[in-house]
C-alpha cells in the first residue's frame, strides 16, 4: 500500500544519459519482443523442470514482508523444482531502478510495476511486459478478480489506453479512499453514522455547529486534495465519466455541469469552514495523527491508515465508504497495491504465471488478511481483528463487487498529477474560481486525448 500518490520516477533517464552514447533511447535492442503466444499453457508447476524466477517486489514493510516471505516459502516447498530469488526494494528504490533493470541485459522475471501510465503504461508501450490474457483464462483470473480491479492493471498493447485492453498484472492487496470517523465523537454529537451523502453533509454541519473540526485535512503535500476531491466528485459526476477522466480516455468533459457542481460543492466546504484551518499549509501526517488523538470527526483518507489509526483510536475508530447520494450506487476512488507482472524477456512465462496465481490464490488472500492487510479479493470472507478492519474489508468487497471502484484522478495524463495538485490548491485557497479550476484540468485532459 502506498501512502503517497503514484508519482512516476524516471531516474533511469539520468543514469542512462551518462551511459548512452548515441541519441537517447535508441540503444534499446535488448528490450526483446513479446514472446509468441503459446497455445498450450502449462499450469502444473511440477511439470516445468528446474526453474529459477527472479522476483522484484516492494513488499518490505511489516506485514507485507511477512506475507510474501510466507507465500514464497510455501510455493517453493510445494514445487521444489522452482526457486524464487527474491529482490525486495522500497517503493522509492523500485520506482527509480525498475526501468533500468527492465531495459538492461538481465531483466528480472517477475516485477511489481506501478499501475500508472509513466510506469506500467510505458513498459507496455516499450514491449517490456507480457500480456496475461491467456493465463487469465487458464487460471480463471477473469472470474476471480472483479472488473474494476483488473482495469487498473489493463492497457491496450500499444500502452496508449489505460483501464481496458489486455491484463498486464495481478495485485495482492486493495486500497481505497473512504471516510474514517470517530465513533465517540458521533455519540457525543448525538448522530448516527451517515448512510447517505445528504446525511453526511448534515452530520458535518452538526459537527461544525458544535465546535468540532468536521473534516481534518492537511494539504501542504499537495496530493491529499486529490483524494478528498475524489470523494466529493464521485457523488456528483457519473461513474463512467469519472473513469474516462481518470484513465485519460476521450469522451468526457471536465467542464460539464456535474463537474462544476463538484467543484462548487468542495469550495462550499472551504467557505463553511469544515476543513482544518490553513489546510494548504498543514501536513498530511500531522493531521491524521491529530485525528488519532481525538481532534476531528470525519477523516477522508485511504485504507492504508487503518493500522495506525486503529492503534490510536481502538474501538472508537469507524470506517465507511463515502456514502452515496440517496438511491445512487457506492463509488469510491481506489486501486490495488502494485500489480505483479511478467517481463517479456522471461523465458519461463508459465512458471511466472503459476507463481503469480499462487500468491493471489484464496489461501494467499487468507495469509494477507492475517497480516492485517486488505486482500484484493475475498476480503469479505476473511476473519477480522477489529470492527474498523471489518468495515474496511466490507467496504472493499462492496465497492469492487458493485463495480464502484474509480481510478485516481492524477493517472489521467503524464502531467495530470502536477496540473490537478496545483489547480486544487488554487481552487481551495480561493485563488481560482471553480470555472477556472475546471478549465485548467480540461486543457490538460483535452491536449492529451486530442479532443
Amino acid at each position: 500500500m502506498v501512502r503517497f500518490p503514484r508519482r512516476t520516477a524516471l531516474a533511469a533517464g539520468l543514469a542512462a544519459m551518462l551511459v548512452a552514447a548515441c541519441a537517447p533511447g535508441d540503444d534499446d535492442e535488448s528490450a526483446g519482443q513479446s514472446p509468441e503466444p503459446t497455445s498450450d499453457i502449462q499450469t502444473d508447476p511440477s511439470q516445468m523442470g528446474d526453474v529459477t524466477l527472479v522476483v522484484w517486489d516492494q513488499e518490505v514493510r511489516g506485514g507485507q514482508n511477512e506475507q510474501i516471505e510466507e507465500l514464497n516459502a510455501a510455493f517453493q516447498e510445494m514445487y521444489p523444482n522452482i526457486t524464487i530469488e527474491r529482490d525486495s526494494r522500497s517503493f522509492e528504490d523500485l520506482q527509480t531502478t525498475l526501468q533500468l533493470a527492465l531495459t538492461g541485459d538481465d531483466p528480472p522475471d517477475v516485477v511489481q510495476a506501478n499501475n500508472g501510465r509513466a510506469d506500467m503504461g510505458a513498459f507496455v508501450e516499450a514491449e517490456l511486459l507480457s500480456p496475461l490474457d491467456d493465463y487469465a483464462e487458464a487460471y480463471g483470473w477473469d472470474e476471480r478478480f472483479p472488473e474494476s480491479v483488473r482495469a487498473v492493471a489493463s492497457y491496450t498493447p500499444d500502452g496508449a489506453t489505460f483501464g481496458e485492453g489486455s491484463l498486464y498484472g495481478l495485485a495482492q492487496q486493495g486500497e481505497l479512499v473512504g471516510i474514517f470517523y470517530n465513533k465517540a465523537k458521533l455519540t457525543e454529537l448525538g448522530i448516527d453514522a451517515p448512510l447517505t451523502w445528504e446525511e453526511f453533509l448534515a452530520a458535518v454541519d452538526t459537527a461544525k455547529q458544535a465546535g468540532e473540526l468536521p473534516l481534518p485535512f492537511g494539504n501542504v503535500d499537495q496530493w491529499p486534495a486529490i483524494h478528498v476531491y475524489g470523494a466529493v466528485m464521485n457523488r456528483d459526476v457519473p461513474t463512467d465519466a469519472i473513469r474516462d477522466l481518470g484513465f485519460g480516455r476521450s469522451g468526457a468533459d471536465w467542464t460539464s455541469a456535474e463537474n462544476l457542481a463538484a467543484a462548487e460543492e468542495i469550495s462550499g466546504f472551504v467557505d463553511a469552514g469544515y476543513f482544518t484551518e490553513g489546510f494548504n499549509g498543514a501536513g498530511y501526517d500531522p493531521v491524521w495523527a491529530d485525528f488519532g488523538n481525538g481532534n476531528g470527526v470525519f477523516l477522508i483518507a485511504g485504507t492504508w491508515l487503518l493500522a495506525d489509526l486503529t492503534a490510536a483510536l481502538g474501538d472508537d475508530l469507524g470506517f465507511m465508504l463515502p456514502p452515496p447520494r440517496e438511491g445512487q450506487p457506492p463509488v469510491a476512488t481506489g486501486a490495488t497495491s502494485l500489480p505483479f507482472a511478467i517481463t517479456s524477456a522471461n523465458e519461463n512465462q508459465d512458471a511466472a504465471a503459476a507463481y503469480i496465481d499462487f500468491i493471489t490464490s484464496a489461501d494467499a488472500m487468507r495469509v494477507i488478511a492475517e497480516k492485517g492487510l486488505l486482500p484484493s479479493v475475498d476480503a469479505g470472507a476473511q476473519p477480522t481483528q477489529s470492527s474498523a478492519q471489518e468495515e474496511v474489508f466490507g467496504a472493499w468487497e462492496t465497492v469492487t463487487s458493485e463495480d464502484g471502484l474509480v481510478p485516481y484522478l492524477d493517472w489521467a495524463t503524464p502531467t495530470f498529477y502536477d496540473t490537478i495538485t496545483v489547480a486544487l490548491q488554487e481552487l481551495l485557497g480561493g485563488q481560482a474560481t471553480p470555472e477556472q479550476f475546471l478549465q485548467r484540468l480540461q486543457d490538460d485532459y483535452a491536449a492529451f486525448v486530442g479532443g
Partner: protein
Amino acid sequence: MAYLYVLPAYLVFGLFLLVPLGRAIVLSLYEWNGLTPATWVGLDNYRDVVADEGLRAAFGHAAVLIVFYAVIPTVVALALVATMTRARLRGLGFFRTVLFVPQVVAMVVVAVAWRQIYAPDGPLNEVLRSIGLDGVARAWLGDFTYALPAVGFVGTWVQTGLCVVLFLAGVSKIPRELYEAARIDGAGAIREFFTVVLPALRNEISVALTLTVIAALRNFDLVYVMTSGGPGSSTTVPSYEVYRRAFEIGEVGSAAAVAVSLTVMIFVLTLGITRVAERGTS
C-alpha cells in the same frame, strides 16, 4: 610535462563533471521520455524555457530567493560584524558557533524543522497568538503571498552564519593601526565602516556572495520538503522544475534544457561577482 600533474584531477573532473554536462547539453536538444527513442528538436526546449510562463515564474522566484539568501544575509552580517569590531564582545566564540550551526545541519533537516515551525498550529503561530498578533498568524506555507518569503527566510537564517564567520575572519586581518588612524582623523562609526572595514572585506564579500547566490539558485531541498512548489505553483524554482520534468512527467529533454540554462545563469552571475570584486582591488 606540467599537464601530467594536472591529469589525475582533470580525469576525475572530466569524468564526473564535463562528461555529464556534455550529455545534459546533448539531451537538451532532444525530446525524450526516458524510455522510447528520442526525437531531435534542436533549440525548441530552450525556446520553451523562455516562452513557458510557469518557468519564467520559477526563475522569478529564484530572483526573490537571491534577495533572501544572498543580499539580506550579507547586509545583516556586515552590520553585525561592524558592531562587533566597535565593542569587545564576551563569548564571541559562542555566538560564532551558534550562528554557524545552521550551515552544518543538513538542509533536509532544516526544512523539516521549519515546516513544523510554520505549521498552522506550529510554534511561530503560537508565539504570534500569545502576544496578541492573531491577525498575523497564518498557514505560512499554504499562503499564496507569504509562502515564498517564508521559504526565503529559512535561507536567510542558514546563510547569515556563513557570512558572519567569513567577515569576522576578514576583519581580524585588519591591523589595529588602521582603526586608530581613522579615529584620530575623527571618523565616526559609520565613516570607519566605509573607509576601513568595507574595503578590507572586499574579497570576503565576493566569496560570501558567490556562495550564497549559488545556494539560492540551486535551492531544491527546501522547496521539495517544505512546499513541493506550492501552494499552487507559488514557490517553484528552476531546480525543482528540473526534477519535476525529468523524474515526474517524463520530459527529460526539457529538464536538461532548464538545467543547462540554470548552469549558465549561475556561471554568469558568479563570474560577474568575482569580476566586480577584482576590478576594485586592482
